[in-house]
């Protein structure tokens, strides 16, 4: 859930009561009102948390090792890569576009890094930067083709999906698999911080969230604007604090806070700030809402779109690097399989609209948690791949159906 100042662009239905909507009597909606909002999808992030809770309860009952510190730490490691890729997918979805090449790009970028590191003997940092640069270049190419030639991004990135997979095979060459041993790369997914470091990080995060919220509140009050109702603010801060402290406590009970999770959360916070607090981010939402209106308002929509594709491919490359670091190898199936579909399904489950303009970057993390939990739980239960695919597909369909129902109800209540 958002821990940042809620920018005015706030284009996703609020997960807290709207500050200015509440007229005198009920500062906080009653249970009935809260239920109505939930049904209408206004509490988007809360809904995904409920889905997550259900998934966890089901697997906790089905397998006694699911809700253990060891397994939840494993879960954190497993979702780092797909969550990172999903951040870029959220950005593209916000535009009302799609990027089908993120899986292939993540595989190719990882292969570039692995080749440079293991075959050419490059140090870790330049090899990782080369991987990210590969992603950025691919994004620039695909974005330019999409915007300048006005070809649907669906087609351009579908071509990319095939093309970059071919490039992956070419980069790997005859060896097929490249094992990673360079410390700097391996450390990404295999570093765990001590309990003390974990608590310091938690303390800093809570302090930043509370401080930021109070600062924002003071600015609004000073400017004579109605601040968010105190009860909602406190509820939000308490929820965020509980989540952070709880996560660190669980992770510390096992190996400690993993670096990979910090990278994922850090990227989510960073990109969320980009989308809600900058003019660039505001324009991403605007294009998703009405591209022509945004163009007429003087925004260079083509450049904006291209930049978003660059960001998406770069984040996909970062996800590929994380995944390679976790698996300690890159092979011909890297970035393939269901990675692409899970990276898109996660944000959609967490409430990002496929039609653009609605959703928050946090959906990348929450969606990856839901998808990752399902996958992790079914692995614990040793279910067959056939069942896993069908269950994951069912969950995705259910989530999208819920979203569609919420939209229909909003329409029925005169809200678009």
């Amino acid at each position: 859930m958002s821990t940042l100042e809620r920018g005015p662009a706030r284009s996703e239905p609020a997960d807290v009561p709207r500050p200015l909507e509440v007229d005198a009597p009920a500062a906080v909606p009653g249970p009935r009102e809260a239920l109505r909002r939930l049904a209408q999808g206004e509490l988007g992030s809360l809904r995904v948390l409920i889905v997550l809770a259900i998934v966890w309860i089901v697997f906790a009952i089905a397998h006694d090792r699911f809700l253990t510190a060891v397994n939840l730490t494993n879960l954190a490691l497993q979702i780092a890569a797909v969550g990172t890729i999903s951040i870029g997918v959220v950005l593209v979805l916000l535009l009302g576009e799609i990027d089908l090449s993120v899986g292939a790009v993540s595989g190719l970028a990882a292969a570039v890094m692995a080749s440079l590191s293991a075959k050419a003997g490059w140090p870790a940092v330049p090899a990782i930067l080369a991987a990210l640069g590969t992603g950025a270049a691919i994004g620039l190419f695909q974005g330019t083709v999409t915007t300048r030639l006005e070809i649907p991004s669906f087609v351009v990135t579908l071509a990319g999906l095939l093309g970059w997979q071919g490039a992956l095979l070419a980069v790997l060459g005859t060896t097929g698999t490249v094992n990673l041993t360079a410390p700097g790369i391996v450390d990404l997914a295999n570093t765990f911080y001590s309990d003390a470091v974990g608590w310091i990080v938690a303390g800093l995060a809570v302090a930043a969230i509370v401080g930021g919220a109070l600062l924002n509140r003071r600015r609004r009050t000073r400017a004579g604007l109605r601040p968010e109702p105190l009860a909602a603010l406190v509820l939000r801060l308490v929820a965020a604090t509980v989540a952070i402290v709880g996560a660190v406590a669980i992770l510390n009970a096992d190996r400690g806070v993993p670096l990979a999770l910090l990278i994922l959360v850090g990227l989510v916070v960073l990109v969320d700030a980009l989308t809600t607090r900058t003019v660039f981010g505001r324009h991403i939402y605007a294009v998703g809402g009405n591209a022509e209106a945004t163009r007429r308002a003087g925004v260079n929509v083509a450049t904006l779109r291209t930049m978003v594709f660059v960001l998406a491919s770069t984040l996909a490359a970062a996800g590929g690097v994380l995944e390679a670091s976790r698996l300690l190898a890159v092979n011909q199936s890297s970035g393939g399989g269901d990675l692409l579909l899970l990276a898109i399904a996660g944000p959609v489950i967490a409430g990002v609209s496929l039609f653009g303009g609605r959703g928050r970057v946090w959906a990348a993390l929450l969606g990856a948690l839901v998808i990752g939990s399902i996958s992790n739980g079914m692995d614990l239960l040793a279910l067959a791949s056939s069942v896993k695919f069908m269950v994951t597909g069912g969950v995705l369909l259910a989530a999208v159906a819920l979203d569609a129902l919420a939209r229909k109800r909003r329409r029925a209540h005169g809200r678009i």
Partner: protein
Amino acid sequence: MREGGDRLSGVPDHGTPLLALRGIEKRFGAVNALAGVDFDVRAGEVVALAGDNGAGKSTLVNVITGVGPADAGDVAFDGEPVRIGTPHDAAALGIAAVYQDLALCDNLDVVANLFLGQEARRGGRRGPLDGVAMEQRAGTLLASLSIGGLDDVRREVGTMSGGQRQSVAITRALLGEARLVVLDEPTAALGVVQTEQVLALVRRLRDRELGVVLVSHNLADVFAVADRITVLRLGRNAGTFPADAARRSEVVAAITGVSGDLTPAAAREVRG
């Protein structure tokens, strides 16, 4: 100011017009969409542009807003000859257009829509969004225009009524220091109450000494709010009239090209 073809019927000339068009020509292939059209708007005046379908209203609006520049003719803004070649030229002069489709982002709130493309930033040109400043300014502006129902400026525009959306679109035109506002069929899709809201807003624009060009099919609205009515027919001036309900039949005659009084039934038909 030299009046070109002065067909102003008894309307006195109040100094330099804010916008003066003379002898505007516009051709689309073989079609002469505008043939020597003259048009004036003064500050603090609402001029309605009336005419039947195909009379050249939209073409003239596009000339004013730079969307479709004139092939020939003179344009003067504040008495100075200018060229409006692009929408950007028009915006630089202080000409704001509100199109029929409103060009709003339904997924954004009122503040975000008002400031779209001209967002306030904290700490200079590269800084982050200044949400507080924008919300403050939006609130002040909306209050000064006493636009009802928009007291929650964080509300998503997609959840609003047609009249409120129209009000947001018009208000947006005022953020950029506009001096002339072109409204294209602002009441076309609105109910009675909402139409009245929008017309009240148009009057407040006039009170702020803005020039307003109102394109409308609806003669009832035109007579309710305009100071003058310029009628186009088949791409030519068909007269300019004071918006006096007593001269309604003259206006109708100018629109239809039928001289003399229409039968009441035919007049109703023309009014649509």
